[in-house]
């Protein structure tokens, strides 16, 4: 059975609806996602199979209540796993495309949860980067250590800026 790997897919399709549509297009072409793990946002592996029509849904839940899985599973959704706080669900369909979020209020709440998670990560990286940059300039370090600290600080700050762009992009599409 052939497989294909997709790198950084979750970062290329940052809006939840875009990521879901991309997964659905993969399934249409016969590339099936069978499992999602903590590192799937970086590397995602698809198995070649029969083309199928699946509706995918991603839902950010940091600490879901005990009935979270049952609520989806009872409604016919298959849990593929989670990457960080993002749970990935799918459901096969023939004609009417199923929706997990069926009103405007909860669609927006879903987007807000993603924006919140990204904002927390961006804040941590920004604070870490700032601390490293300050240390590289003001701490009593050797020239080599100071340069390494500076490079790490720039990397952290750059990742924070990238995540801010991601959060803005998700927010702009919050009603999808």
């Amino acid at each position, binding site marked *: 059975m052939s497989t294909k790997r997709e790198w950084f897919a979750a970062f290329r399709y940052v809006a939840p609806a875009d990521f879901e549509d991309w997964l659905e297009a993969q399934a249409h072409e016969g590339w099936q996602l069978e499992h999602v793990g903590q590192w799937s946002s970086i590397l995602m592996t698809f198995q070649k199979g029969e083309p199928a029509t699946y509706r995918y849904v991603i839902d950010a839940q940091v600490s879901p209540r*005990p009935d979270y899985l049952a609520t989806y599973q009872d*409604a016919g959704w298959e849990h593929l796993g989670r990457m960080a706080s993002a749970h990935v669900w799918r459901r096969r369909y023939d004609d009417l495309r199923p929706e997990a979020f069926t009103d405007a209020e*909860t669609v927006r709440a879903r987007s807000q949860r993603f924006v919140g998670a990204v904002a927390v990560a961006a804040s941590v990286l920004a604070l870490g980067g700032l601390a490293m940059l300050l240390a590289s300039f003001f701490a009593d370090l050797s020239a080599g250590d100071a340069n390494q600290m500076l490079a790490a600080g720039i990397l952290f700050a750059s990742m924070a800026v990238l995540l801010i762009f991601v959060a803005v992009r998700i927010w702009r599409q919050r009603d999808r």
Partner: protein
Amino acid sequence: MVITLRDASARDMVRLVRNRRYSPMSETMFYILFALRSERHGYGVMQYVKGLTEGRIVLGAGTIYTSLGKLEADGLIAVTSRGDRRTNYLITSQGAEVLRQEARRITEMSRYAKEIL
């Protein structure tokens, strides 16, 4: 049966309605609260609302889960029992009052709506 929360007060209920979190109430919230006049779990609510509206409203799993969490946090419903997988919920006295207020609002609108039909 309606649950009365010890820490619930009329002031809390008035606050929820006045700050327009539940007035006007979305159709989703109305039917979830309506369904939880009897004890039900999430999927039970979905089935009940679908049957009640003859398939016009099919609540999604994410919508049900999110809405139940919000209603519980606001004290309009409460958990009555937790099984291995499912959790049962029931409307509280605050939830019942908020639902009644919404019913009055809809009834008034309905009276005027009939005049244009």
